């Protein structure tokens, strides 16, 4: 651990770190694929194309979060996995066996509902035992499974209680116990922490992570909440309008987004756009002419050869924490400070308007206190390594950067 320690002080996104991130995603790839979704399409009887030929896979033991705005197809995808929605086309393979046509109860997939939906007329133990009946286990094995999971979930003291008497944390544990006692190959969670008090939600997230660690089961969790996705996920599948924009480990989704949609939907981002004027000799850095001036960006995120994009219009993304105060970096912009918002324990957020394009907005995130005040003129900048070029606005045809992504 100590040899990696100095990196704690370094800014994120340098080329050296990028290499490291690539290695770690290769490491994860060596873990066995447990779920493979291929060409999945769902057209509802009314003609709505909810899911449009999507592919993604999840490795064993991963915590995969599917996110996207409402109507993006994430719920249809989840319901296809569990068998509540019949796929129009494509295949779902679980642990090497195709289950696209398999009945829901034979799929070996657990489901935790929104609001947990415990059986109110059954005790905690009866809730947990309920699904086991179907497995036809010898009685002593069933008993053993129930008592083990009740203990692991710290529910042993609540076996005879009614679900209505339980705290939110206990309800979550019963819902998880009820599914995990069946030892499913995959556990699906349908936005279980949706409508909850802020503090309680964070505590439940932590418990969920602890349970995931304990059981080493593969979790697929659906939510529209980006911050929750970042707090929970090993892997994120970003959906938009029935398509998968990107499916990757968190590090890759955050640091090397495939599209402008992903860059803005996952985490906060400054998006600039301009014409690529040229590249460095080795092609690793491109020069982009924008309304705010000429900037250098790294090119390794591009699918295209850097030389091919010269003369075209492209967007690039810079995370707010990669914007720094001062002129000692390659790319700089002179800005007026519009607002400074401090959050004790988390530093400050600075809202800026570039002097050369006052209607544009840049956001800077600082871990230290910021002395600049509203109305001040300051210079901010970033290194080419922290500017990520984006091949496309979105995988969805016809999506416009300005109106659909940067507008509201």
């Amino acid at each position, binding site marked *: *651990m100590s040899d990696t320690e100095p990196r*704690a002080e370094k800014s994120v996104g340098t080329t050296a770190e990028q290499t490291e991130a690539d290695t770690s995603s290769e490491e994860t790839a060596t873990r066995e694929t447990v779920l493979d979704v291929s060409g999945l399409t769902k057209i509802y009887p009314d003609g709505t194309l909810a899911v449009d030929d999507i592919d993604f896979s999840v490795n064993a033991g991963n915590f995969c979060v599917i996110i996207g705005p409402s109507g993006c197809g994430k719920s249809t995808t989840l319901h296809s996995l569990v068998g509540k929605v019949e796929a129009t086309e494509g295949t779902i393979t679980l642990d090497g066996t195709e289950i696209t046509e398999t009945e829901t109860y034979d799929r070996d997939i657990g489901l935790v509902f929104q609001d947990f939906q415990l059986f109110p007329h059954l005790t905690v133990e009866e809730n947990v035992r309920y699904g086991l009946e179907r497995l036809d286990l010898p009685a002593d094995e069933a008993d053993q499974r129930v008592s083990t999971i009740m203990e692991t979930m710290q529910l042993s003291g609540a076996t005879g209680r009614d679900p209505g008497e339980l705290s939110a944390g206990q309800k979550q544990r019963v819902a998880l116990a009820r599914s995990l006692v069946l030892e499913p190959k995959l556990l699906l969670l349908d936005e279980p922490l949706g409508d909850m008090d802020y503090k309680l939600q964070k505590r439940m997230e932590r418990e969920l992570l602890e349970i995931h660690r304990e059981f080493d089961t593969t979790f697929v969790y659906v939510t529209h909440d980006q911050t929750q996705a970042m707090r929970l996920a090993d892997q994120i599948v970003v959906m938009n309008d029935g398509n998968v924009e990107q499916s990757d480990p968190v590090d890759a989704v955050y640091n090397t987004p495939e599209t402008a949609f992903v860059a803005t939907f996952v985490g906060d981002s400054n998006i600039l756009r301009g014409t690529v004027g040229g590249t460095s000799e080795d092609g690793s850095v491109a020069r982009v002419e924008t309304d705010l001036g000429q900037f250098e960006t790294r090119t390794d995120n591009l699918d295209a050869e850097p030389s091919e994009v010269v003369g075209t219009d492209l967007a690039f993304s810079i995370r707010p924490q990669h914007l720094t105060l001062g002129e000692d970096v390659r790319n700089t912009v002179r800005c007026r400070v519009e607002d400074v918002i401090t*959050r004790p324990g988390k530093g400050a957020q600075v809202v800026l308007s570039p002097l050369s394009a006052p209607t544009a907005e840049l956001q800077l995130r600082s871990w230290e206190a910021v002395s600049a005040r509203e109305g001040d003129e300051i210079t901010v900048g970033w290194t080419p390594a922290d500017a990520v070029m984006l091949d496309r606005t979105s995988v969805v045809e016809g999506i416009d950067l300005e109106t659909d992504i940067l507008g509201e």
Partner: protein
Amino acid sequence: MSSTAAIEVDDLSKSYADETVLQEVSFAVESGEFCVVMGPSGSGKSTLLGCIAGLVEHDSGTVRLSGESAETVPVRSRDLGYVFQEFEDTLFPHMTVAENVAFGLEQQDADHDRAEVDSRIDEMLDLLAIPDTRDSLPTELSGGQQQRVELARQLVRQTDILLLDDPLADLDYKLQKRMELEMRDIHAEMNSSFLYVTHNQDQALKLADKLVVLNRGRVEQIGTPEAVYYRPASAFVGRFVGDSNPFVGAVTADDEAEGEVSVETGIGRMAATVQGGHPADDRRALAMVRPESVAFDSAAEGRDNVFTARLIDWTYMGEETEYAFEVDGLDYVLQAVSRGRPTVTEADLGTTVPVGWDRADTLCFETVSSAPTVTVDDLMRV
């Protein structure tokens, strides 16, 4: 308290049947101030707003609005706006956005010139970035747009006081962040006094000039976000606001300096700094350290409190990484947080490392909570 305060609440109490909802609550919102009330659900936040608006009758105590006792001012004549959380229910479905906003103005007694009303509506819709919705019906709008219409309807009246009951709670993350900025702009521009209730900690800490922390109907602390976060007045405030790792144990005074104590915790003796007076020796008290103050590996060396821990997990969240450690004698997972990417790899999982934090960052509390029924053990689970 200065008599020019926009809102002055003094000794306010309210009970429903045998349940005390507000207990001797006192605080003031100065003119032009952005005051945020935060607290767990059931702490009395919304009842407090209701009492100030005149929608809920209080049992005892006084509410003064701009220096005048609220009892002498009928609810209709109170110069205040009220933005509800459930905005869908308050917009008129058969009226356009402009008509809905105009309704706010027509409620005021003053005679408004038609042209003046129109221009004020336009101004407000511009400010809230929804000028294109002017002739739409509420049902044609997104949730975020509807919320802004509700805001516009209250803001257009330019009341001296605006009460807001968690107005951004139902918006999605991106819109919430956008509206937080707009809320600050609007407040700065209007020069009104805002009293804003929320359960969202980030929002409270970002928006407030002054925070009022409520718990079980009582005021736990009044102060700036910095004071509440870094110098919590009670163990409750420390645990409720922000994230923290709690420890519990008997307190003994250290000789070296005032306010320095040792806490005999389950993981060992811990040097701590006392908040708000000195707990009696040997008393069981709560101490806590925030995740951002927990160092690990070589960075832990030389800290005032160093323990041996096992790294069991980490979560990379883009801006920061959260680490989970097991420590002998601790029945929960210790959290640490660092900026940027993880400083560990898969190979480090399960390894033993030192974790450490300083005395100055280890807060120990004289007061558990202003609510007498709250115990130290309750706060371990917050």
